[in-house]
C-alpha cells in the first residue's frame, strides 16, 4: 500500500462527474416511473431496490472516489455492508419463521373446553397467509 500514497489526491474529471450526475437523475426518473406508473407486480420491490443499489454504487465509486482511493477504504465499506446484511438476514431468520416449532403443533394443547388451540392458531395463520395472495 505504500506505493500509492498519493492515491487520495486523484482528481475526478468534470466530465465523469457530470455523466454520473446525469445517470443518477435518469435512474431516479426510472424508479419513479416503474414504481408509480408501470405495475410490474412482484418485481416492483426488487427492481426499486436494484436501482437504489445501482445509484448508491455510482455515488460511492465516483463521487466518493473509492475507485481511485486506497483499497483499504473499500474494504472498510465492504465490511460495514456485510455487517448490515448479517444483521438483517439473521434477524429475518427469526422474524420470517416465527412460530415454526413443529412438535408443538402436532401435540394437543387444550383449553378447558377441549379445543385444540394450536390447531386453531395454525389454521388462522394459514388463512391470513392465504388472504395476502
Amino acid at each position, binding site marked *: *500500500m*505504500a506505493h500509492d500514497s*498519493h492515491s487520495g489526491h486523484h482528481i475526478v474529471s468534470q466530465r465523469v*462527474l457530470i455523466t454520473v450526475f446525469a445517470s443518477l437523475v435518469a435512474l431516479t426518473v426510472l424508479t419513479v416511473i416503474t414504481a408509480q406508473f408501470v405495475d410490474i407486480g412482484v418485481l416492483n420491490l426488487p427492481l*426499486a431496490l436494484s436501482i*437504489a443499489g445501482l445509484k448508491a454504487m455510482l455515488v460511492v465509486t465516483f463521487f466518493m472516489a473509492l475507485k481511485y482511493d486506497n483499497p483499504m477504504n473499500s474494504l472498510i465499506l465492504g465490511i460495514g455492508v456485510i*455487517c448490515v446484511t448479517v444483521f438483517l438476514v439473521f434477524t429475518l431468520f427469526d422474524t420470517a419463521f416465527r412460530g415454526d416449532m413443529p412438535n408443538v403443533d402436532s401435540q394437543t394443547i387444550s383449553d378447558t373446553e377441549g379445543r385444540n388451540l394450536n390447531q386453531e392458531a395454525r389454521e388462522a395463520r394459514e388463512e391470513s397467509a392465504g388472504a395476502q395472495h
Partner: protein
Amino acid sequence: MSEAVATAEQIHGHDDHPAHLQHHFVTSDQQFEASKMGMWLFLITEILLFSGMFVAYTVYRVWHPEVFQGVSSLLDWRLGGLNTIVLLASSFTVAMSIHFAQKNNQKGLVINLVITLLCACIFLVVKYFEYTGKFSHGIFPGIAYHPHGDYAVYDIPYAGQFFSIYYIMTGIHGFHVLVGIGVFIWITIRAIKGDFTSAYYTPVELTGLYWHLVDIIWIFLFPLLYLI
C-alpha cells in the same frame, strides 16, 4: 498490508512542516490518509446506525406487506422525488467543489459549496412542508396515529408502525442534513478565507464523504418509503 508509514521521518526534519501538519504525523500524506480512513470508519458507523431502522422496516414490512404498501401511498412521491433530485444535485456540487479545490480554483470551490448549502436547505424546507402536511391530517408516529377526514380509511392496524419508522428514519436523516448544513457553513467560510488549496483540502474532502453518505441513505429511503 505492511505500509511502513513513518519512514519519512528520517528524511524530514521538523523545520519544513507545513502549517496544517500536526506534530505527531510525519508527512501531509500520512495525515490526509489517516483522516480519510477515520472518516470512512465513521461512515460505516453511520451505516450501521441506520441499519437498525432498515431492519425494523424490513421486519414489519415482511409481517404486514399489504399495510406498508397501502399507507406508503399517503406519502407524496413528487415531494420525495424532488428531494431526491435536490440531494443528488448537492452531492454533485460537493464533488465538484473537491474537484475545484484540487485544481486550486478558489471561485469554483466556493460557488459549489454555496450551491450545496442551498440544496441542503431546500431539502429541509420541503421536508418541513411534508411533515406539517402529514400532521394536519392526524398522521403522527405510533400511538398518536389518527388520520381523519379523507385519510380516515387509512386508520388501520400497523399503519402507525409504518409512520413511526417513517418519522424516525427521515427524522434522523434530517438531523444529519442539519448537521451537514452546519459543517458546510463552517467549510464555506474557511473556503472564502482561502484556507484550502490543492495541498490541503482535507476538511472539504471529509465533509464531502459525509454528505455523500447522507445522500446514499436517502437514495434507499426514497423508494422504500414513498414508492413501494
